Structure formats: C-alpha cells, structure tokens
C-alpha cells in the first residue's frame, strides 16, 4: 500500500524530500507536530467543528504559456491559452492533493490558488496552491459522517476561510472539492466605421457586451461541469476573476472558482445571528 502510494506521488511530481517530510509528519504518532498556514481564528474554528490540522500542503507548477493571437476584428476564445491556464492549475492542485493524501488527510482547507508572473520570463507563470491538510476526528461535523473524501476518494479541498468552513459544517454541508473553469477570450476591436459612428454618443457597445458575456458563461459552465462530476449539490463562494496577465487589454482570462458542497443531513439550521461589536481591526 505504502509503496503504491509512493509511486503515485512520484507520478504526480512530488519530490522525494517532500515525501520524507510528509512521512515524518504522519499524524497520530506521539510527538508528532503539525504545521498550518491557518490564521488563529481559522485554526480554532476548524478544531471546533472536529477537524485537526496535520500539515501545510502545497503544489507548484511553473508553466510556459504558449502563443496564440486573436484576430483583430473577431471575438473568440483562445483555446491554447485557456488550456494552459487550466492545465497548470490542475497540476498544482493535484500535487497539493497528493501531498494531503500522503498525510492521510480527509481534506484541505483554506486553499489559496494563485498565479504569479515571476521573474522567470514573460510567458512563464507560476501556479501555486497552498492549504492546510486536516483530519476529521470522530464525531466531526456533529457525528454520523464516516467518509469525508469525495467520490474520487481524494481528500476534499475548499478555498473557504476557516470561518466560512465552520459555518458550512455547522449548517450541515460538507465541501467536496474546489471546482474551477477558465476561459481566455479575445475581444474584437471596434471597426473604424462603428468607432466613428459612436463618437459623442451614449450607446451600448453590443459586441463588447456580447463577448464579455460569452467568456464568463464559458468559464462558469466549465466550473459547473466539474461540480457535476463530483456529484455536488451546489457551489458556494464562487469568485469570478479577471486577469489580463501579459496579453494586452483585449485578451483577458475569465476564471471562475468555488467550492462544491454536498448536504450531510436533511435539516440545515444555523444559530440565530447575534449582534456584536467586533474588536478586530
């Protein structure tokens, strides 16, 4: 079993050193420590709903993004770029999940998925996924839940903050996994004629509207398809981001990301909110 896991990890591209580190962290042993990048609030809240942090997990991929140009006057998806953004994120996420799996974790909370254009060069982006692997203690989430992993028997992932995670579990839902959709879209430039015609007028630029609509719809439908694959009830905490990266003003990436959830029980009652004066800055 462990050998099987070891080879799996190597296939995912997790380095030897990382595996050794994970083996040392393996929870349950006396004297085992945990690492986490949770804030104090999150750490305490995650423990409160019955999860124990076991380790800081991360996945990285540095990716050379290919080249594709949109036609000047045409709105279209740039599928080479879409695929690059998607594939690289997938690589980073899978490596993070593999690390969590090696720790024997039930899930990863507080995941941050970032793209950074680092000093490696113009077309090279770093994709990084960081989160805290957690193990469910008996009776977590009000008890009665035996399996926290998703239908691919991988640890669940969630980009919800510790606070949101607490609220979600308390309300009788469990996260299944982070789902995402990406679409890089080239928006057509205005033709000279229509540009001249619009000077000084208040009009809607229908082709721009249409292009932005299409691109967002594509990204969101891809995200939904991922959620359906996980047999989720719904997606919470969706963020719809736009990045222009280094492609100029008419080529934009639309990126939708959220956490797919499933119900744990029938009733979903949360405590009545109370008014407080927060001391937090």
């Amino acid at each position, binding site marked *: 079993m462990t050998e099987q896991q070891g080879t799996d990890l190597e296939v995912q591209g997790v*380095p*030897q*050193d*990382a595996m050794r*580190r994970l083996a*040392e*962290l393996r929870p349950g042993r006396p004297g085992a*420590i*945990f*690492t*986490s*990048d*949770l*804030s*104090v*609030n999150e*750490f*305490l*809240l995650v423990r*409160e709903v019955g999860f124990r942090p076991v380790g*800081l997990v*991360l996945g*990285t*991929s*540095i*990716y*050379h*993004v*290919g*080249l594709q140009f949109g036609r000047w006057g045409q709105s279209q998806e740039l599928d*080479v770029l879409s*695929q*690059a953004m998607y*594939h*690289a994120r997938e*690589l980073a996420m899978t*490596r993070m999940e593999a690390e969590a799996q090696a720790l024997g974790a039930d899930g990863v909370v507080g995941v941050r998925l970032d793209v950074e254009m*680092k*000093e*490696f*060069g113009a*077309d*090279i982006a*770093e994709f990084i996924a*960081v989160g805290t692997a957690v193990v469910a203690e008996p009776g977590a989430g009000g008890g009665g839940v035996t399996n926290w992993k998703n239908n691919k028997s991988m640890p669940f992932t969630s980009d919800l903050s510790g606070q949101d995670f*607490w*609220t979600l579990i*308390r309300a009788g839902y469990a996260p299944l996994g982070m789902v995402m959709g990406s679409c890089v879209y080239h928006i057509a430039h205005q033709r000279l004629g229509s540009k001249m015609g619009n000077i000084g007028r208040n009009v809607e630029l229908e082709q721009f509207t249409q292009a932005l609509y299409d691109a967002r719809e594509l990204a969101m439908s891809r995200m939904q398809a991922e959620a359906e694959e996980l047999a989720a009830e719904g997606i919470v905490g969706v963020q719809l981001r736009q990045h222009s990266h280094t492609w100029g003003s008419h080529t934009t990436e639309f990126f939708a990301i959220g956490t797919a959830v499933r119900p744990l029980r029938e009733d979903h009652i*949360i*405590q*009545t*909110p*109370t*008014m*407080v*004066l*927060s*001391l*937090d*800055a």
Partner: protein
Amino acid sequence: MPTSEPTGEQLPPAARERLADQRAARSWGSSLSVSEFAAVSKVGFEPAGQVLGAAVYNVGDAGDDECPYGKAVYRREGSPVYRAPGSGLPFAGRPAPTGAAAIGSARPLVSVLYQARRAAISRMTAECTALGALGVIAVHLEVGPFGDDEDILEFRALGTAIRAPGVVSRAQPFASDLSGQDFTKLVAHGWMPVGLALGVAVGYRHDDWLTRGQTTMAAGNVEVDGYTYLVRQMRTDARNELELDLVRMGADGVVVRELQTKITERKCPIVPLGRDHVVEATIVGTAITQFASFAPPPIYGVRKLDLRRAVPPPQVSVNLSGGEEQDETAGSPVASQDLPEG
C-alpha cells in the same frame, strides 16, 4: 543559532537607559491598537513597553562560485555519473544533472539569513527580559536595505512586550507575530506561543538546454520542469527548516503568517554566458504549545456591527411652534421637554 545570546547587560547603553526609565516609571509605550490592547487585557496581560532588535548583516555570498550543472558538464567535476567517457568536446554527449542533483543549495547564505533574523529576535527578547516582561506579541519582522549597497541588509524585529501583573517568570520570553486579538484567542483556548519559528531556504539552478527550450516562444503550452522543481524543492526545504525549528523549541505546532518566495536571476559563475535562477523561500510563523485543555469558550454565530454599510444618523427635528405637528414630535425627548405647557 546565534553564537552569543545578548542578555540585558549586553544591550546598547541607549536601549538600557530607555528600558530602565520605562521600568522605573511604570508607564508603557506600545504599538498595539486600541482593540488589541483591549483584547490582551481581557486575558490578564498588560503591555510593558515597545521593544526592538536590529541586526545589520552583509549577505553577499549566494554560493557565488557554485553551480552543479556547470561543475558536472562544463568543468567535468563532481560525480562520475555525469562524466561521459571518452568525449573530447566540453558539452558533447554529456548528460546534464537533473532533478535534485541540478540544484545547488546556498548553505552559507541560508545560515546568514537565519542567524540575522534570530539575532534581531533575540535582541528584541533581551529587551523584553530587561523590562521584566513575559513575552513579545505583534512582532513585525522586516528586512530592509541599508544604504546603497545591496549586499548589506538590515533585519529588524519590532514588537510590544507584555506582562501579567504579579507574575514573575524565569522562562525565556516568547516572541510571536500574532496580533493582540489572535494572542487572546489562543490563550483563551489553552494555547501559548513559544517563539517565532523560521524556515529559510535558498537554492540555484542553471538554465540548461531543456529549460531554455521550454521557455522559447515556440515551446507552446508546457510546464517548465526545472523551474517547478527548483521552486518546489526550496519551499519543501523551507518547510523542513521550519519543522526543525519547531522541534528545537519543543512546540506542538505552528500557525504560519508568511510564506514568501523571491526569485532572482544571476550570471552563472562557471558556464560563460550562462544564466542561473536563484530562489529564496521564507516561512515565518508562531510556534505554539498547548498548556491546558479546558473547554473553550463557546463560539456564536454573530453579525458584525462594522462600518462598511454607513447608517445615516437619526434625524431629530424639533418643532417649537407647537400646533398641528405636536403628535409627531412628541416621541422625541428634546421636543417633549419644550412642549409640556404649550
């Protein structure tokens, strides 16, 4: 680990004087916000004074004459695995080192970066000892340039020492980068900071032909293996160092605030016209340990009264003329005062 831990006696005279004054006057300075102060005093602590530690270091040597690729391929040194027998040309037929073998670790630089931060922190905690305080919270750990020379860096640690009235501790004071609120929450749940845990790793890797090929315009969508490996390895090393620190301190765990990666390029010291990439990964967190496992205070679902949605102030209209509007203004205390006779 720094070789000499500065104690109260070794502090600079100016610092000693300031701390002695502060101690005698029983008044304190602090960089805590009002909310932080309120939170800390809730669990029985009070600020003892602002403390700082600084260390200026020369950090020039990033493994300046090292490059595993250059040594194996160009100079034909190192492990015989990389030496193709019987080939005359310096590059021909020579397999390049890959994976971990291609990455050089800048050990001297790592230990300087670690020691410099440790020195700043231990000077800060020495000030804390001089104040008779228990530990330092809300520590800001900063690295800044010193003058124009980019090799000289100043490492600063700035925080607020706190004490518990009536408690004298012989233990080494702790340092923590948690805010006052976070500190309060930890203490209320039976956890205590042990100290600042650091993980630093610096490594470099030559841009070999494969890497260069993967980064040309024509490469298309492809993962740059070498860079990925380098960054991942350095982050892993940094996490390993962090864990070593935890074990050294005897902590149960760590809450991490900062995970930084700095990437720079340099001229390869061995291969002419070659380029290397240098990655520096830093993790800073507060090591914590559990001192009690009492039932934590309950957590309620709450709605914040924050100022994000501005509520207009209540309109008070006072009508002194009496008459037909009397009914509307009767509820207002100002109006009702003026209207009893009218």
